[in-house]
């Protein structure tokens, strides 16, 4: 409403702050956090961002050649999943969407698992590494995971664990009632959860501006009275730092945070999509310069943490790792039909035994 000095008073004021450390060329634009000097950390971060990019290319090519299913690449937005994964502890719980395979790898999921999953098998989510044992699986239904994360956080809090949940979803997901509901209950119950929006500007063909008239997505957190922040989502230092800080607050009992990471989806939505139908290639070109890998590498090279030789070695290594995994695991034998029944319930109810027998008979028939 129009402010009117004669009658209205101010009941409350708010602001959305924005965080960025590095510019596109890797130069500092603010005082750098300690993590910026942690060479071991940064090298690992850079390696996983590079792995993500290489694996994306592999999955797209496997899909094109009929050897894997629909796949949604994270090309151009690698700083978000790796920034947040690198900020988490083992004991924290990751609640992802479908574009955070690299975060899952960081935490202990294996390339083989992703290969299984995207080739169409649930087995790809039966992870056993300590950090991922209780992580939630990929969530295909956009936004549902936000309330799951609130529930996970409620469980962590209930048990008094020194841990928090990290939930990831896209700009499109912020339109979902689930996401708002999760923000709201996370505020009302002061839950240890960090919501991270990967604002890559597009939800399939729908641009960010058609999702919402909100000036920032970060401000959606205000609706539930939780802390909010906007971050340059192509600056992995900023993402890592913001999520670290939010996690520390969450673990300390200071409640939830909503972080908008502003990035850009440089490729098609997924392998079934053709984005030239709905967006201007010129727009995409503009964003290429903001590449998060390029930015981190530039910073590391400027600070003497990385060299062209190391780059070449790493690229070779990653290619080998991926190719090896593909060879070993992509064509792993499928499960038998009884697998449909194995985990329907803890124990198969008698009522379904006949159906299982039929399925198994047909399978071998």
């Amino acid at each position: 409403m129009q402010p009117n000095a004669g009658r209205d008073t101010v009941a409350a004021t708010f602001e959305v702050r924005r965080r960025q450390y590095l510019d596109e060329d890797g130069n500092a634009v603010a005082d750098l956090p300690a993590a910026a000097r942690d060479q071991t950390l940064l090298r690992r971060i850079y390696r996983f961002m590079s792995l993500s990019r290489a694996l994306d290319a592999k999955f797209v090519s496997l899909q094109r050649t009929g050897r894997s299913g629909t796949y949604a690449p994270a090309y151009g937005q690698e700083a978000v999943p790796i920034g947040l994964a690198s900020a988490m502890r083992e004991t924290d719980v990751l609640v992802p969407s479908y574009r955070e395979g690299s975060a899952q790898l960081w935490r202990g999921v294996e390339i083989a698992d992703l290969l299984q999953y995207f080739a169409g098998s649930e087995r790809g989510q039966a992870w056993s590494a300590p950090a991922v044992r209780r992580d939630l699986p990929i969530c295909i239904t956009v936004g549902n995971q936000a309330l799951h994360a609130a529930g996970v956080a409620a469980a962590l809090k209930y048990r008094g664990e020194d841990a928090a949940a990290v939930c990831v979803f896209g700009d499109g997901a912020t339109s979902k009632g689930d996401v708002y509901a999760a923000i709201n209950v996370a505020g009302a119950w002061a839950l240890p959860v960090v919501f991270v929006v990967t604002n890559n500007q597009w939800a399939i063909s729908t641009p960010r501006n058609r999702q919402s008239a909100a000036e920032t997505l970060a401000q959606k957190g205000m609706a539930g009275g939780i802390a909010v922040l906007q971050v340059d989502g192509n600056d992995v230092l900023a993402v890592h730092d913001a999520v670290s800080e939010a996690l520390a607050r969450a673990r300390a009992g200071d409640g939830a945070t909503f972080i908008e990471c502003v990035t850009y989806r440089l490729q098609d939505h997924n392998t079934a999509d053709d984005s030239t139908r709905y967006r201007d290639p010129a727009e995409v070109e503009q964003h290429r310069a903001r590449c998060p890998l390029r930015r981190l590498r530039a910073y590391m090279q400027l600070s003497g943490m990385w060299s062209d030789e190391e780059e070449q070695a790493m690229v070779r290594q990653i290619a080998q790792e991926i190719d090896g995994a593909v060879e070993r695991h992509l064509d792993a034998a499928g499960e038998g039909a009884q697998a449909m029944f194995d985990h329907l319930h803890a124990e198969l109810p008698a009522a379904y035994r006949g159906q299982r027998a039929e399925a198994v008979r047909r399978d071998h028939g």
Partner: protein
Amino acid sequence: MAELTLVQAVNLALARALSDDPDVVLFGQDIGIHGGVFRATEGLYQRFGGRRVIDTPLDEMTIGGLAVGMATQGLKPVCEIQFIGFIYPVLDNLANHAGRMRTRTRGRLSCPLVVRTTHGGLVRAPEHHSDSIEALLAHLPGLRVVIPSSPRQAYGLLLAAIRDPDPVVFLEPTRLYRAFREEVEDDGRAAPLDRCFVTDAGSDLTLVAWGAMHADARAARDELAKEGISAEVIDVATLKPFDADTLLASVERTGRCVIVHEAARTGGFGAEIAAILAERGLPSLLAPVERVTGYDTVVPMPRLEKAYFPDRQRIIEACERVMRYG
């Protein structure tokens, strides 16, 4: 041993579960200090505290989503949806997550949650408060759907539902909440899930019902007995997974079957029961199966609700038709 109403039996089972298992957590709208609009959680907040008996914000989707998330981490959320008409926003989580989490992760995670809500009508309530959508729930893979017909069953089945390692929807017949009392021993003994109960033996026909309609079926049986018709009454109790063996054994003996439910006719759970008879009971059938059900209309507001729901008279007439057949 105490004489309890059904809602008191629910309360007793909840208290028992909270005492027995520190992983059990209750939440829902107004279930805390208020004790729930039907008093199902009366005194539990006072006894077990706000950490375990929690009021939620007013959003059913929130309740469903929280339950899934909590359950994946090994808690046993038991949540209340105030009336069944408000359960639709929970279906997304029941269908897409609760019933699938174990399959999706090949057993790595599971969803041992219970969603409690009301069932059925004839309580002169406003719109949306009198629905019966057990058939929707019973079609969704990975869920159990349970509905008690008496205080004792409520106690035993609810304990079983809470202890079950997988998701259960537990439907409480509103009309029975305070309709009658029964001795209920707080012995911590769960009733068996996944089976139907023959509550009254008979030889001429099989009457199948659940929830509040079970009492109407029994009342009809008493009347029919006066006409010399001997009806066997089955209380379905667990709708999904459905215990076809008990049904088929009964109809093999009686040769006739009348199914009663409050829900709309088309696609009600009575259809599944009749279908099982058409598939596996055909040689036994001496007469057509009959379904006595709500109509395929919207459940009317109170002034017309009596015209909508099956009652003893409609059940009796169906039984008589079935007996006259052939």
